[in-house]
């Protein structure tokens, strides 16, 4: 009991000093806000040449349009986790504090378990962590090809009158420009000096 009280006191002391030391750091300058859009929906899109059409047409299903409208209305809640954390330093600090406490108490538990020679439990925890780590590495190796590959054949397909399909992020950009822009990820595959 006495040891736990001493440990807790040490932990609190360390945390309080950390807070004060952070107080000496100058406030970072506000970074200028980028004018880039925010992704509200990821879906698929096909580009289809139509020799009989007089105007380009953009066809969107009603449900997709409703989803876009809905997401556009909730832009603030659709921020990524990192963005949300950046906007709330208090929450980040609280999360950090509790992570610190979790690791500290896990250490105490680890030490107590070692005293009781509970090696099986510790070994299983390490094994589990290793398995998760390896699984993460393996899963990343199975990631699909980058999205731009699907769009590589667009110029040739347009010339041949064929359909090209691929993934598309629908972004809402700031401003009141009425122009709709389609940005296609085409990589220049020509070798140097080939042009």
């Amino acid at each position, binding site marked *: 009991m006495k040891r736990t009280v001493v440990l807790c006191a040490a932990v609190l002391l360390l945390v309080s000093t950390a807070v004060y030391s952070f107080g000496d750091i100058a406030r970072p300058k506000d970074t200028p806000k980028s004018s880039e859009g925010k992704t509200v929906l990821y879906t698929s899109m096909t580009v289809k040449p139509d020799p009989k059409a007089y105007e380009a047409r953009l066809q969107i299903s009603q449900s997709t349009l409703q*989803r876009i409208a809905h997401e556009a209305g909730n832009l603030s809640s659709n921020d990524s986790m990192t963005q949300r954390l950046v906007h709330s330093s208090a929450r980040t600090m609280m999360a950090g504090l*509790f992570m610190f406490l979790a690791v500290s108490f896990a250490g105490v538990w680890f030490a107590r378990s070692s005293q009781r020679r509970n090696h099986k439990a510790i070994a299983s925890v390490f094994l589990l962590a290793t398995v998760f780590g390896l699984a993460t590495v393996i899963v990343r190796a199975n990631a699909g090809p980058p999205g731009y590959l699907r769009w590589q054949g667009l110029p040739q397909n347009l010339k041949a009158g064929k359909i090209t399909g691929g993934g598309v992020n629908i972004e809402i950009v700031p401003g009141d420009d009425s122009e709709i822009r389609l940005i296609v990820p085409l990589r220049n595959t020509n070798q140097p000096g080939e042009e």
Partner: protein
Amino acid sequence: MLTATRMERTANIPFTAWPNALARSRTRTSVRSFALVLVASACLTAVLASWLPLQVSIVTVFLFAGPHNWFELRYFLMRLPARFGRSRNFFAVAFAGIFFLTAAYLAMPALYYLNLWSGSNWPDAIATWNTLLLLWLGALVILRGKQNSRRDWFWTLPVVFMLCALNWLGPQLFSLAIVYAHPLVALWFLDRHLRRTRPQWLPTYHRCLILLPLLIVGMIWQLSRTSSLADDNGLFWRITQHAGADLLPRVSSRLLVSLHVFLEMLHYGVWIIALPLIGATGAVWKVRTIPLARRRGGFPKLIAAVLVFSLFVVGLLWFGFSVNYPAMRDVYFAVAIAHVLAEAPFLLRMI
């Protein structure tokens, strides 16, 4: 001579073996029936929840939300010891936590609707409440662990703190996780009761539980590509929001509502059908099955009054649903946090 020996052997067969064989056969049949009912109910529930999620959600909450709370109250009274003894501290912390956390949970929307709080720091308030909940659970676990010297539940502390950290990273997502995890607690209660009252059913029950992740994966596979539900009226919007449509905008709201309804129906099924059938709540009309009423100097009249009053509240809930379903649904899901909290100490008492 040989015939005579055979006759003698037959005569020597102990009569006591026959009832045992009959009992074994009866047990096998009952286990099979139990498994069949579990599998059929789970499959039917999954199909209904996937097919008509909004409609089934409305009907299910209307019919079963109140009664399942009554059965839970009846069950908790049954599990409450006649005298607290060494568990006095445990129950003191448990009841204080239930009261304080419920009051705090109800205070948040109340303050907002009374214009006493703008709700601007809503995520921080939710994160604080979740943290208090986790710390309360941690305290209960430690207190329960101390009641038996062979238990060392110290490892739960780092887990609790890690959960607190995750909660502060995404408070609303953490609350949503509670919404989805809470129905599964009923399955844990059923497990503990089978362990005590029908241990021969337990392996079958565990095998049936494997079906649950399979059904969930099947629902995700079937519904993840479907278009979101049209939440164009207030009630449908509330249901999709409750299932997390706003927090998980890239997931089809049909999938979210279906999954939530599926889990809720399982939860109601366990409390209203499974646990009373295996005798976990005692004969519902007999107050004397409750220790607090049975003991010398107990409170049978008070317990009976509490149960009758609760029945009246269930009736009132049905009336409220009939008059204004959306508003009553909001009120119910706010007040229902009390039963979510109450499950924790009683589950811990069974571990």
